[in-house]
């Protein structure tokens, strides 16, 4: 026990492996059916989406409200590559999975490119321009997908091979969150927080605020794109209406209710709100009435969200004891 307490990274790895083993065991013994496994996979995807949104909205203090647009770019790009152009299939995993990984990363890169196009003109300005630009971009991407026959138009794109399994999502979610967390705890991350707290003060200490903001935004769009790719290969069918502004808003609700200035908060928010609708199945048509109310009430009574500034201990960088330097 003492060993685990002092070597937290090892403890965290063991914990995640245990979670995976338990989930898999419950599935194999039939206690959790395929539907619940799908739900757990969705939790993983939503965690990555929410944490990546939190990098922009929580840690850099900007207001991006079109995250589903980037998700759509990633989803459609990767689905076109695996399904339409290369006809990858799960029957031959040794060929299929490399294609899937390349396709998903390509989706992420294209989403990052879209992020640059959206972010570069709007982030050099102070104020709320990003909000309106990302909102318009989201609606525009939706309209373009609807009008493009090559990607199925309003009918959507089906027959996508199901590459996203429990294992894939576990690896994907952990790697993404670790990457984003390391970025946030790096000196870049501290610059981001400085930009959030006072843009003028940050600028006067020599931080290139525009560059910092645009980079974070592009980084975040990349993860949204990759999540979109993973999402498409889970549902095996995507259509433009899965990526409307309402979807973006769902992620904003996950983020702000969980706590925008905390990675753990984003994760908690994503997990709770992905699982919650299953408990409230009978209230399905009320869902988008209740969610915004929860958001408004959170803003009024607990602006910082459930987690506030707190993090789970496994998120934080373990503090090594410094050796005393004798004079």
């Amino acid at each position, binding site marked *: 026990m003492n060993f685990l307490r002092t070597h937290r990274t090892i403890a965290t790895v063991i914990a995640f492996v245990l979670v995976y083993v338990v989930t898999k065991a419950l599935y194999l013994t039939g206690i959790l059916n395929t539907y619940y496994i799908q739900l757990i996979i969705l939790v993983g995807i939503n965690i990555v989406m929410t944490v990546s949104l939190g990098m922009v*909205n929580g840690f850099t*203090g900007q*207001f991006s*409200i079109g995250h589903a647009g980037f998700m759509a770019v990633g989803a459609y790009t990767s689905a076109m590559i695996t399904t339409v152009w290369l006809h990858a299939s799960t029957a031959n995993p040794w060929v299929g999975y490399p294609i899937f990984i390349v396709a998903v990363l390509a989706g992420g890169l294209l989403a990052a490119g879209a992020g640059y196009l959206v972010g570069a*003109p*709007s982030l050099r*300005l*102070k104020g*709320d*321009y990003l*909000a*309106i*630009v990302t*909102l*318009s*971009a989201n*609606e*525009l991407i939706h*309209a*373009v997908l609807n*009008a493009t026959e090559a990607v199925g138009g309003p009918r959507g794109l089906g027959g996508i091979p199901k590459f996203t399994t429990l294992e894939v999502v576990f690896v994907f979610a952990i790697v993404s969150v670790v990457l984003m967390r390391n970025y946030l705890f790096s000196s870049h991350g501290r610059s981001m927080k400085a930009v959030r707290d006072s843009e*003028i003060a940050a600028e006067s200490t020599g931080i290139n605020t525009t560059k910092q903001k645009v980079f974070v935004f592009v980084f975040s769009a990349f993860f949204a794109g990759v999540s979109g790719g993973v999402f498409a290969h889970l549902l095996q069918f995507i259509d433009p209406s899965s990526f409307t*502004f*309402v979807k973006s*808003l769902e992620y*904003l*609700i996950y983020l*702000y209710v969980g706590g925008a200035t905390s990675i753990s908060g984003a994760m908690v928010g994503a997990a709770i709100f992905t699982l919650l609708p299953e408990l409230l199945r009978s209230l399905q*048509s*009320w869902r*988008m*009435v209740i*969610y*915004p*109310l929860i*958001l*408004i009430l959170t*803003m*009024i009574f607990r*602006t910082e969200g459930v987690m506030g500034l707190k993090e789970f201990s496994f998120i934080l960088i373990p503090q090594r004891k410094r050796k005393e330097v004798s004079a």
Partner: protein
Amino acid sequence: MGQFLQQLINGIQIGSIYALIALGYTMVYGIVRLINFAHADIFMFGAYMGFFLAPVMTKIFGGAFIPTIIAAMLITGLLGFVMEKLAYRPLRYKSRLSALITALGVSIFLENFCALPFVFGPAYRAFPDLIVAGNLPISASLGLTIPYVLLLDVGVSVFLMVLLFWFVNKTLIGKQMRAVAFDKPTASLMGINIDVVISTAFIVGPALAGAGGILYGTTYGMLGSPFLGIWPGLKAFIAAVLGGIGNIPGAVLGAYVMGISEAFATSVNSNLGYGIAFVILIGILLIRPSGLLGKFMPEKV
């Protein structure tokens, strides 16, 4: 030539509706520095009020248009007032971002609440005829006609704009509004009641959007769903940015530029009509972020 003029006329018509919405965005932004996302849904609410009130008003007054538009403006004004009181006022001294998030929440709440089957319902509805349908022939050789509804749109919006300019420039509360928009702390030190001014902005803006909603319903003759406000709202907001956010004449100018460029873009390709708003937005942010009539304000430390 005839085609060109016809598109110009169409653009002016849609621009008038955008102008009524854009004025509310710009007034609220000028005074509380908040993008009121819910404004688009107030516009939608106004349109639906027209749908429900028109038969009642016809029964009571005989004519429908004027009583309906006044009643709808009163109701949307009240809605704006209540919205500010309940949702935005508690957040006034918290971070600006939290008010923005709340505005987004209010917007989605209104859309989805109104889409519930026992409120307005998600279905398509035909808007009642409030005025006589018909066309005013202008030039037979060019094939140019002006529908009566267009004259109504332009007439009503210009009338309301003139009324607004009078209100903002000549009345006491209007002067107070301009003072608060200019410098809130100093205005409050001069004895201006900030709460009253903010409430007024949240009544006048939504009332104009309500009028816009009625005109929208009359022009298109139908209400798609309670989500109908999203696109006109977005375009009107972009129009307000184009004219210089916070600037009232700017919002009107931006709305007409937006309406006309959209009419021309749509006549080329119907999808381009959606894209043009985005192109204008990115263009204005790159070239002149303070807007056509806005002043560049350097940030003081």
